[in-house]
């Protein structure tokens, strides 16, 4: 019985994932056909999706983990701002090295994860409230460090940020010059995280426990799983990924300031939901979240390329997609319930 149920869950999750991937492919290919003359078909356009969203991909992975356990983390945007600001402050005002900035960033993320995880799992406070407090705290602390914007001029850091990795393919521009497509190291890190987390979710005990807890916490307890420790681990890992994602975000913007990454948490949640993660927990993959982020990026680059539409249409299209996926999830859940009854 247990086995059968698990199998079905994976089925519905694969189904949601497939829809996301198909949707992305269709959208992107449509864009390539429609806007071919505007350079949408260029490989670099595709790479830009990853370059601009590397931080969001990593943060979305963390979000997916806590959402699988049935939780949520809305502090990630503030953590990103705090990480950027701390890294910038450490390097520019304290003269620390870029390496120590990385360490600081990751420590901030882990610290948020530990504290929030403890409050959620051991004191059993609603994750929304805990991370809401974390969100205010992070943004507030960022402003305490500095209300002025800090530009990062650290040589090592800039070398990382500007280290272009040319790919063996590219396009010719109008002047007939060959321009290879390129990515930045942030993209490799982001994709690495996606692969590692996918493996972890699929093949480790911890990964399977996460799904079990999210599916039904009661039965997970009865099955003898250490629910609290698993949840705690999920939040710490989420915090770590928020710290790492924040640092990648910082590599893209090369600055720290209070208003940075406002609303990033909502983008991360939206990406996870579009990628097939259920808000109620138990279902979700990071590959899906990756495609969720890519869909988000594709919509915005389609609208920028179009050139005359207001960029607020990005939000409107995104909301339509979110509705679509939530309805789809509801249908799947209804089908499941019916099957159970039969």
């Amino acid at each position, binding site marked *: 019985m247990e086995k059968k149920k698990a199998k079905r869950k994976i089925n519905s999750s694969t*189904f949601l994932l497939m*829809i996301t991937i198909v*949707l992305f492919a*269709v*959208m992107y290919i*449509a864009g390539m*056909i*429609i*806007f071919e*003359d*505007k*350079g949408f078909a*260029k490989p670099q*356009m595709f790479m*830009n999706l990853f*370059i*601009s969203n590397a931080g969001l991909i990593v943060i979305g992975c963390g979000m997916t983990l806590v959402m699988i356990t049935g939780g949520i983390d809305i502090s990630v945007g503030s953590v990103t701002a705090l990480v950027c600001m701390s890294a910038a402050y450490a390097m520019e005002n304290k003269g620390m090295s870029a390496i120590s900035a990385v360490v600081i960033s990751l420590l901030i993320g882990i610290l948020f994860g530990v504290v929030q995880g403890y409050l959620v799992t051991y004191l059993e406070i609603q994750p929304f409230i805990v991370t809401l407090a974390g969100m205010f705290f992070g943004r507030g602390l960022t402003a305490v460090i500095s*209300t*002025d*914007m*800090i*530009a*990062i*001029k650290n040589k090592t850091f*800039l070398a990382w*940020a*500007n280290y272009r990795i040319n790919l063996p393919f590219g396009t010719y*521009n*109008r*002047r007939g010059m060959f*321009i290879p497509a390129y990515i*930045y190291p942030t993209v490799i890190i982001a994709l690495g995280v996606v692969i590692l987390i996918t493996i972890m979710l699929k093949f480790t005990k911890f990964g399977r426990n996460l799904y079990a807890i999210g599916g039904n916490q009661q039965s997970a307890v009865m099955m003898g799983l250490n629910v609290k420790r698993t949840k705690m681990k999920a939040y710490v890992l989420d915090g770590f990924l928020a710290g790492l994602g924040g640092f990648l*975000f910082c590599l*893209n*913007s*090369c*600055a720290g*300031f*209070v*208003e940075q990454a*406002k*609303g990033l948490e909502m983008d991360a949640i939206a990406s996870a939901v579009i990628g097939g993660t259920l808000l109620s927990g138990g279902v979700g993959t990071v590959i899906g979240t990756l495609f969720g982020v890519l869909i988000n*990026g594709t919509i*915005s*680059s*389609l609208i*920028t*390329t*179009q*050139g*005359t*539409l207001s*960029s*607020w249409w990005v939000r409107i299209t995104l909301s339509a997609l979110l509705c*679509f996926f939530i309805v*789809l999830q509801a*249908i799947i859940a209804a*089908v499941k319930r*019916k*099957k159970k009854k039969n």
Partner: protein
Amino acid sequence: MKIKKILCSVLLATCMLFSLTACGSSNGSKDAKKADDSSKSGNITVGFSQVGAESDWRTANSTSMKETFSEENGYTLIFDDAQQKQENQIKAIRNFIQQEVDYIVLAPVTETGWDTVLKEAKDAGIPVIIVDRMVKVSDDSLYTAWVGSNFELEGKKAAAWLKAYLDATGRGNEKINIVDIQGTIGASAQIGRTKGLEAACKENKNWTLLAKETGEFTQAKGQEVMESLLKKHGDDIDVVYCENDNEAFGAIDAITAAGKKVGTGKDDILVMSFDSTKTGLTDVKDGKIILDTECNPLHGPRVEEIIKSLEAGKEPDKKQYVDEEVFAAVKDVAKISADGKDYDVTVVTDDVISKRAY
């Protein structure tokens, strides 16, 4: 049963995709036609990344760009609203590069963090013209030219007027308490205007800067900040220095709601503002705002000049300031001097307002 449901969902999904692509393609065909037109007539393509639409000033700035770079004038403008987010602007610039636009015009949200993406533009051989706020980059050759306002001068002009006005009305030696409702922290306008005021407060020993708080250039936040300042400092406030018109509108609402008056009376609060939008100047005429220092948003023509000189193979000046005026509600001060230059003070009349373009 299950198969039926899945089929149904797939059908739904395809329906939606079709509707998406359908609306996309209708736009696309229009665009394709436009692109054809432009390649025939040799239109110059300009990609403009705008901060957002947070204030009247910004809207006027966008309108100026759209009017200047119109199809009739021989341009194709790709306009992108970044919704106040730097990451959106970085995305938009990368997109412009892939579209191989002829020029990129950037009104940056923030001063920093542009090195990487401007380097990409430079490598692609696309000149970048910065408007409004300045950028701080490690290498100045990353952008071709900058067009904008001298914000510190604006602040200095406002402070010079206040000093002259206080002298003229016999309050030159009184203790004056000022609160500063700042713009979005880190924006050049905020930095320059705050600097201008701070310098004046240091010079004039009888001026005290009671508080500095950000109103984020919006009416709602301006009102909120003013409410809290009134609670904290109450009757002590003599002058409110708002760093744009929208904040001033909010501050005026808050002052009136607290049962106080704005204007020139003995216990009234003087409201100073920047930008000089049409609505702002109407408030100046009504005596609600005592002084409004202009921040000229009509950058379009200046940017076009730069593009024309670049097209002609000339090298334009790297830094270009737009001309700006000072508008007052009262006649007490006719001339002010700031940074060693004299400026006339315009008293606002209906005529002045009707001539205003934004």
